[in-house]
């Protein structure tokens, strides 16, 4: 039965040794390991979550960029068409203005020509009048050389005047 009787000396040392081992391991051993393992677990979980989020964001970014690209293309088309319209408008306006300016110049020219012409005509008239008076004088002088002709003329003229006044 020697094997089945616990020896007090061994019991004493076992209590002390196990106590010390337990104290050291429970204080500095297992909690550290378990804490690290749990930290690692949360770290891995967080990393996975972050990776998933990053993936989602990446997908979003692609979608976003596609949208932006489409918008840009649309804008480009719009700007181009607007530019074309503006160009057309400007050209048309320029043409119109040129046309009007030309018209104006033409009109002015016409008016000036008219005035020139009129003054020239007036000039010519005056000259003609002067000339015709001179010619008439000369004719008169030659024709009214005698008294009889003169009287005849006066009469006729008087008649004419009377007639015109009668009317």
């Amino acid at each position, binding site marked *: 039965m020697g094997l089945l009787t616990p020896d007090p000396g*061994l019991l004493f*040392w076992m209590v002390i*040794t*196990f106590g*010390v081992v*337990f104290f050291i391991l*429970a204080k500095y*051993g297992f909690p550290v390991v378990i804490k*690290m393992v749990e930290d*690692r677990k949360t770290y891995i979980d967080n990393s996975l979550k972050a990776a998933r989020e990053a993936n989602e964001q990446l997908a979003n970014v692609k979608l976003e960029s596609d949208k932006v690209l489409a918008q840009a293309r649309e804008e480009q088309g719009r700007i181009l068409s607007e530019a074309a319209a503006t160009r057309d408008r400007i050209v048309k306006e320029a043409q119109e203005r040129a046309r009007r300016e030309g018209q104006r110049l033409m009109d002015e020219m016409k008016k000036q020509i008219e005035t020139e012409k009129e003054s020239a005509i007036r000039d010519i008239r005056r000259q003609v009048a002067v000339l015709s008076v001179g010619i008439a004088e000369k004719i008169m002088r030659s024709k009214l050389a005698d008294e009889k002709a003169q009287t005849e003329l006066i009469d006729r003229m008087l008649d004419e005047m009377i007639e015109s006044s009668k009317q």
Partner: protein
Amino acid sequence: MISLLLLLSIPTILNAQESKAADIDVNELVFGHIGDAYEWHIATFGDTPVSIPLPVIVKSSTGWHVFCSSELEDGKEYEGLYIAEGGVNDGKIVEKNAEGEEVRPFDISITKDVLGLFINSAVLIVIMMACVRWYKKHPVEQGAPRGGVGMMEALILMIYDDVIKGCIGEDYKRYAPYLLTAFFFVLVNNLMGLIPVFPGGANVTGNIAITLVLALCTFLLTNIFGTKTYWKDIFWPDVPTWLKVPIPMMPLIEFFGIFTKPFALMIRLFANIMAGHAAVLSLIAIIFITVKAGPIINGSMTFVAVVFGIFMDALEILVAFIQAYVFTMLSAVFIGLSRVKEHEAK
């Protein structure tokens, strides 16, 4: 395989009578290794034993005595103390009291098992602290450990996640340090016991004093932190009333259960490890028993003994782990049972 076993068993039967003379030697050999001793015997060359003397610390009727165990060799007496031979105190240090009877003084000598305990505990602490050092040096971002530290981590997590979390339930964190310590303490002591030469080989977990302390720890943890429901289930269990009154049959059984559970823990570990050591030693002893039976039988038996010895050692490694695991698991189960909450109404 069976025919081989039969063939091999024939010489054993034939030798049964011849080997009787060596029986006492085998007994001494096996129990000498299993039991405790005041010196650490390593080997005997011819007639000179090679052993490490260990300090003896004794408080006898004449006060404290601290001396080297080599003083007591071969039945020598030192300061009135000597090692008893035969009787109740066989192999222990005794002194003679006034009536001339052999009595044991207060004996806290560093015996073989105590030294083995110290060495194994140091090994355990060194291993664990090496692991902790690794964790201190490597931040979480650097990933999981490999090699030895990884193995320790896997073991710790196996116990922590499967056994402790699974068996105790809610407040498992409070009991985790004790259960992990118990597991690794038992495991290291079991494995060190399988190493045949000096630093190992002491039959520590195969000694009832060791398992007694371990089982006592579980017993205390179970009952000190037991819930109200746990105590109610012991003294007023949920069984038909005639089983409780007038003869408290069930409460009595349940009450004894408190003590039998840790008692089973103590005996299971002690018996398994002790038996394992005994089996291996007996197998090896076959070689020496059959020496007298002639070279052919001795040769064949040596072969058998070595093959079975290897098998037993491999089995013992398995048993070392299984017993550590079982001890931890049952402790966790007992603690878990003592943490029961109020039964849900069915």
